[in-house]
């Protein structure tokens, strides 16, 4: 019996069955077929426990949502305490917590960003950003990169990969042209007509397997935006909150974006919230018609409390330095593993603790994911490039846990290599 108070299941099998029956049959089955029969039960720090009690170290972090670990005690304490006074709040009125968080976000942000609008999730925040760009420039086109991922809401899904937009007949290629990543000529071609409202870019495209922008690429894109009067929207959902060793990854490129979007991790993993930071120019609609975007749960005050604590933790100098230590240890440890499997584990893309592990097989990351899972580590393949495993260590790791992750990863990569080669697949 698995009794969770509000509900219970007789067994994991029963739970999986009901998940298919009442929730999401395809997604539920997908994981069973992938060799990952995970149903997350207990969670604490960077650990997850399956319903069967097996412990996993989380280096997926659900895209950085658990950047600070699961149920981070400081965030939990802040939100718990706040529940004695706050609730979601009323989005019509000036709000205590929304205002406090907005001020803190602006203080943390690259120069030039002055106003904040809130959503309840990353997709909504992207929609706000795209609407904002359209309003500011009075143009419709949004340029994104091929294989981009910005969420699943109305406009965000249009800016992403066709897999998700076409499914719901939401693809609008004429409004959402896409260009290959790291291709400046294509970018200029797309912007040359001066009919583009904004370029939206993840600073490092996560779901595409964290391909790194070539040195100078983002800077040049920003310059092109200025030349052709398009806004630059930095999607910092996965690269923000100290994951690259700076609060916002875009600042490592010296770029002050017109709009910056944050989500996932800003919630502290405790209460959903997302935010859009805008320049004074972009924030015109907030002066013109502040009711322009309505969101009952957007910037819910309890979420603001979670986000304030999250920002505070991420902004501590100790944490920044720790990210540098973790990034150094992880990258040197992964380089050691790479030396043992040079034909299989072919590369590491990394900026801070944002990492993509490249494998020499079209589905390589899925094999590694499965073996990592069996070895006690949870990391996910890149949906839009399954040769690459997303590898996202938390920013509060201890040295001991970081070493343990590397030990387990070495074993799993070796086993995945043996499995792929044993089946006679072409590895090289």
């Amino acid at each position, binding site marked *: 019996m698995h009794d969770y108070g509000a509900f219970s299941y007789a067994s994991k099998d029963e739970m999986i069955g009901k998940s298919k029956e009442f929730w999401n049959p395809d997604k539920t089955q997908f994981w069973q077929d992938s060799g990952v029969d995970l149903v997350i039960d207990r969670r604490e720090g960077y650990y997850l426990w399956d319903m069967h009690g097996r412990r996993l170290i989380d280096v997926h972090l659900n895209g950085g949502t658990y950047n600070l670990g699961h149920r981070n*005690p400081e965030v939990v304490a802040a939100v718990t305490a706040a529940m004695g006074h706050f609730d979601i709040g009323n989005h019509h009125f000036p709000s205590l917590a929304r205002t406090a968080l907005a001020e803190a976000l602006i203080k943390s942000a690259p120069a030039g960003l002055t106003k904040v609008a809130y959503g309840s999730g990353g997709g909504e925040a992207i929609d706000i950003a795209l609407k904002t760009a359209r309003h500011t420039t009075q143009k419709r086109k949004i340029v994104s990169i091929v294989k981009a991922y910005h969420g699943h809401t109305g406009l965000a899904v249009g800016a992403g990969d066709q897999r998700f937009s076409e499914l719901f007949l939401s693809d609008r290629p004429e409004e959402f042209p896409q260009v290959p990543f790291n291709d400046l000529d294509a970018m200029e071609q797309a912007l040359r007509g001066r009919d583009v409202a904004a370029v939206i870019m993840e600073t490092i495209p996560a779901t595409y397997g964290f391909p790194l922008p070539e040195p100078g690429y983002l800077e040049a894109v920003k310059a092109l935006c200025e030349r052709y009067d398009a806004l630059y929207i930095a999607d910092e959902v996965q690269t923000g909150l100290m994951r690259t060793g700076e609060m916002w990854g875009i600042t490592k490129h010296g770029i002050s974006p017109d709009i910056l979007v944050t989500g996932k991790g800003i919630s502290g993993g405790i209460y959903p919230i997302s935010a859009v930071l805008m320049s004074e120019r972009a924030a015109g609609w907030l002066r013109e018609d502040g009711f322009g975007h309505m969101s009952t749960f957007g910037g819910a005050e309890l979420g603001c409390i979670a986000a304030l604590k999250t920002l505070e933790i991420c902004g501590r100098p*100790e944490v920044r330095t*720790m990210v*540098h*230590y973790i990034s150094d240890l992880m990258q040197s440890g992964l380089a050691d593993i790479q030396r043992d499997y040079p034909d299989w584990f072919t590369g590491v*893309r*990394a900026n801070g603790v944002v990492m993509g592990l490249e494998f020499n097989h079209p589905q390589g990351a899925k094999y590694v994911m499965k073996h990592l899972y069996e070895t006690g580590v949870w990391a996910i393949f890149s949906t839009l490039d399954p040769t690459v495993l997303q590898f996202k260590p938390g920013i509060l790791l*201890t*040295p001991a846990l970081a070493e343990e992750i590397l030990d387990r990863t070495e074993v799993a990569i070796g086993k995945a290599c043996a499995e792929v080669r044993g089946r006679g697949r072409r590895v090289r």
Partner: protein
Amino acid sequence: MPQPLEYLAEPAGVPRARQMLQQAQWAARAFAGYDRASVLRIAEAVADAAAAKARHYAEWAVRETGFGVVEHKVVKNEACSRGIFQTYRDTDLVTPRVDASRKLVSVPRPAGVVLALTPSTNPVATVYFKTMLALLTRNAVVISPHPMAKECCADAARMMAAAAVAAGAPEGVIQVVDEPSVPLINALMTDERTSVIVATGGTPVVRSAYSSGNPAIGVGPGNVPVLVDASADLAAAAKRIVASKAFDNSVLCTNESVLIVEESVADRLLAAMKREGALLLDSDGARRLREYMFGNGHLNTEVVGKPAAWIADRAGVRAGAKTTVLLAPFDLVVPEEPLAHEKLSPVLGVVRVPSAARGIDAARAVVRIAGAGHSAAIHSSDPATIMAYAASVPVLRVSVNVGNSTGSSGLETNLAPTMTVGTGFVGRSSLGANLEPKNLVNWTQIAYNADPREVMPSFTGIVPWAAPRGPVPPYPVASNAAGVLKAPPATLQPAASDLAGTATADELREHVRRLIVEELSHFVKN
């Protein structure tokens, strides 16, 4: 990791301080791989930076705490920075040691994260001291200063941290808590990321260090008897005792507390002490002083580290402005006699005894009240008496013919120079000697089969440590930009060590002595 509800009860600042411990873990992990040349370079750079600011922080400490004497704190700050470095520069606690004949190889293993609690009376000197010890042994240190001295200590710690990192130390190797509080200190002491607590301070903090569940080095309080027997050089004894008692207005745990003098030489000794700047109170004066200092049944903390003349004035006792020590006679060393307790001020209890043997009994009685395992002084030319004294009085260091404040702390003897005087088992401490760098290192011992047929190969020259190749940690540059953007390891150029103008350990001791004498003669002349 504590559960959320515990955090709810934690005051602001505690979670952040825990994060300091975690950063320190990373720093210690990196530092533990440094080679000896890098360690010496860092320690020397920090010692020099600290020594250069010795006066700055001496003034600041006196201003912030109201305790002590600037000139004397300058001396201590210099002794605890450059002095410590010079004393230990040739003590190698980094390189593995090979004992070929016993087929043992010892590999040093730093403690890791040292939690250093520093006192109000000796604030910056102790910050300097513990930081230097940590650096010399490749440990990271998190300093929790006494709240009364938090500003000068935090600033001093940050100055040392900056100097250390500039010399190539790992980021986070020296950290300090800005807003110390009892709950915060308890949280740090019990946190599993703390490798060892080095506690200097009052008895409560030392006891809680030992009950924290973490390894701890804490030392008990002092209450120092000084015996002058009939064989002593009275003039020299008088001079040394007064100078020592006046040193830093007697805030050190090593300052003399009760003078025990053989009746036959008492008048001559006390007369000589008067010539050195002490004021001998009559019974009425002693009563007024007792009333003022202990009127509430415990020490009036207002007197701690204050000048003798100031205390006399407050007590309603006439004393010249040049008086540096108040001599307060009493009859019997018993717990209910306030003047037999530690006074942390330039007030010296005086007891006359009929013989050296009775004097030893009196000294035992002083230490029975407080100060077990700490220190005692004796001025005598009779080795049998000195031996009887040392064997009988339960302390772990007996300073002979020297002021105890600089004697037992190793500044004017050949004991290890220290700000932390181990009081041993008798003083409820794990440390019996003066705290020194080696106390913060363990050794992994490689032990070969003792059978002569099993030969141990040569380990000479096999050193598992290395110099850092750049800033530690390196700044996280995107992996595809590594060749393009990585900064050169500029911070790790061997520092040009300029030894000109710095003193050797012996010179430093002489310097200390001279300063004390100058200070005192200045008072006496005026």
